């Protein structure tokens, strides 16, 4: 279907089903129950982040997964996309489509420039060049370009770029009844939701989420096509042996640059969508640790695989959400069956890993994955499957032996 082989078609259909039915899948517990408070994730803003970060990591994977070039500055493109979109909302109007398009174009232009220079080096030098460019963007966004007193206040510094009531919005309105207009897709407001009640379950279908999900599916589909194309194969060959590639008549630079720009555009798209869902863009989105988080998501899922980026982004956001919700009260409730002393002891320890300490848990998890599971969740899944199939075989073998 759609020019994909059977396996990839299945994969695409599975991802499509997951994305379209996410409001059901992520809300398995009845509304109001304690489990729901903890584990339900079917809220519009969280679901939006799942798919938007999915797009970001899918794009990052086209660069890092295929070529092995580790960019430590991808958050810059995310930030550029975010700012561009907010500017469209300020100057043009509240329709998200022009905003998203401009995000992609701006990120693409910056990726072309930064990529052209950074790709003149490889290995760690490439990483540091991208890091340097990203930090430069971050610092500038934070200082000169964000100084409200200056003439070139593009980013509004620490406060972040936001909509104002007196913005021109030449194709729209500056304000609606004295408040800010909302982002929309040809009149369909991003924040509108339809709620479906079935028994004590409550499911929310949000316009913004579905827009992001559809764009994510398109992005995913394009990435599958790229992975299976001669272009993708060439990139994998560059990763495997650049020396051989050079003596095989291929000028690797344009290929690498194309991959860099594509992944930059994906990041810009993600940034544009973030702003479309919530028209506010801050410089911290460009900080180098934000770039690090993109890398973390890619590694958690499984670098160089198709589904890995989606798993990684989803996993990261989901656990961030759950972990940050667990506080000491919740821990006490969970461990109430223990004797008091033990209960307090365990709560005391676990306290550091949940709630505000979720960074620590994810950091540890990330280290464990790199050490023991370099292929990420995808490799973990494959290993489990192998393990089970071997067990199955053993079981059948032991069964057949007595018969002989």
């Amino acid at each position, binding site marked *: 279907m759609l*020019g*994909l*082989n059977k396996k990839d078609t299945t994969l695409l259909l599975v991802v499509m089903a997951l994305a379209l039915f996410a409001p059901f899948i992520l809300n398995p517990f009845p509304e109001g129950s304690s489990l729901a408070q903890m584990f339900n994730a079917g809220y519009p803003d969280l679901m939006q982040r799942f798919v938007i970060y999915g797009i970001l990591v899918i794009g990052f994977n086209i660069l890092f997964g295929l070529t092995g070039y580790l960019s430590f500055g991808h958050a810059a493109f995310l930030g550029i996309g975010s700012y561009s979109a907010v500017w469209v909302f300020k100057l043009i109007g509240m329709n998200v489509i022009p905003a998203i398009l401009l995000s992609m174009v701006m990120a693409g232009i910056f990726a072309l420039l930064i990529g052209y220079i950074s790709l003149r080096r490889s290995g760690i030098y490439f990483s540091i060049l991208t890091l340097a460019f990203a930090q430069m963007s971050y610092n500038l966004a934070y200082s000169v370009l964000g100084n409200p007193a200056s003439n070139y206040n593009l980013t509004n510094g620490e406060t972040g770029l936001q909509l104002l009531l007196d913005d021109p919005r030449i194709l729209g309105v500056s304000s609606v009844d004295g408040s800010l207009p909302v982002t929309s897709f040809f009149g369909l407001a991003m924040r509108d939701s339809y709620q479906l009640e079935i028994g004590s379950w409550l499911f929310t279908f949000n316009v913004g989420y579905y827009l992001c999900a559809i764009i994510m599916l398109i992005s995913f589909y394009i990435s599958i*096509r*790229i992975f*299976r*194309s*001669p*272009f*993708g*194969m*060439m990139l*994998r*060959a560059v*990763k*495997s*042996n650049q*020396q*051989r*590639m*050079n*003596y*095989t*008549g*291929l*000028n*690797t*630079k*344009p*290929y690498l640059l*194309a991959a860099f720009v594509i992944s930059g555009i994906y990041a810009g798209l993600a940034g544009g969508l973030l702003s479309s869902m919530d028209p506010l863009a801050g410089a911290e989105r460009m900080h180098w640790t934000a770039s690090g988080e993109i890398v973390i998501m890619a590694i958690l899922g499984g670098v160089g695989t198709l589904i890995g980026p989606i798993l990684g982004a989803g996993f990261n956001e989901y656990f961030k959400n759950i972990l940050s919700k667990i506080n000491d009260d919740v821990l006490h409730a969970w461990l109430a069956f223990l004797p008091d002393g033990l209960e307090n002891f365990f709560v005391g320890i676990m306290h550091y890993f949940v709630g505000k300490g979720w960074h620590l848990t994810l950091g540890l998890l990330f280290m464990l994955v790199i050490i023991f599971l370099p292929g990420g969740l995808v490799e973990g899944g494959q290993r489990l499957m192998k393990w089970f199939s071997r067990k199955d075989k053993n079981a059948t073998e032991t069964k057949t032996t007595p018969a002989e």
Partner: protein
Amino acid sequence: MGILEVKNVGKRFGGLQALSDVNLSVKENSVHAIIGPNGAGKSTLLNCLVGKLIPDTGSVMFDGQSVLGRAPYEINQMGISRVFQTPEIFGDLTVMENMLIPIFAKRDGAFRMHAIEAVSSETGINEQAEKMLEEMNMVDKRHMNAAALSRGDKRRLEIGMCLSQEPRLLLLDEPTAGMARADTNNTIDLLKQISDERDITIAIIEHDMHVVFSLANRITVLAQGTPLVEDDPENIRGNPKVREAYLGESA
């Protein structure tokens, strides 16, 4: 006029004159061996031919065109393919993919990128690769990761990858170094077959005299960066200068 004309090439590394006044003419469709003691400058010469190094002086003409100052990929596109001393293949990719890549590279060059159509939809190129695998006797290994091949198979794959681009000149740097006797003989047979059946010129650097005398129809002896003699194999065998170059080295 040979297909490859090297004139007065010199190359200096700091205080070391690695090549001086090298003149070499490789005739079309011949097998030309370059031999010489360790450190004679053979690999340096080869690197000057493929664009890895740029000689300080002299000229290198391939089929009437200068190769100097061109990038390795451009030189490859002119019709020169290179086999490395230790096989350079795409270890993480399958054997079939290894074979497809050079064919795509030859077709697409630098700026044509096909990012949407699937590899499998390019039937013509797949057939070409398939045929080459057959010729190299590797069809049964097509789904293997190239890194898992034996050393002899890797070498065969690399040669196949080069041949799939239908080069006019094939350069080999010690293709049998470190190989077992059987693998060496297989490689000799393969190269013989290639030079007999194809419209191709082969230049080979080799230490193993058995390989040299089984294949070459012309031999250049390089010593201390300059060609000592260039002659037919029969004459090289008995040449006292050659013996001296080799004995002098080992004495």
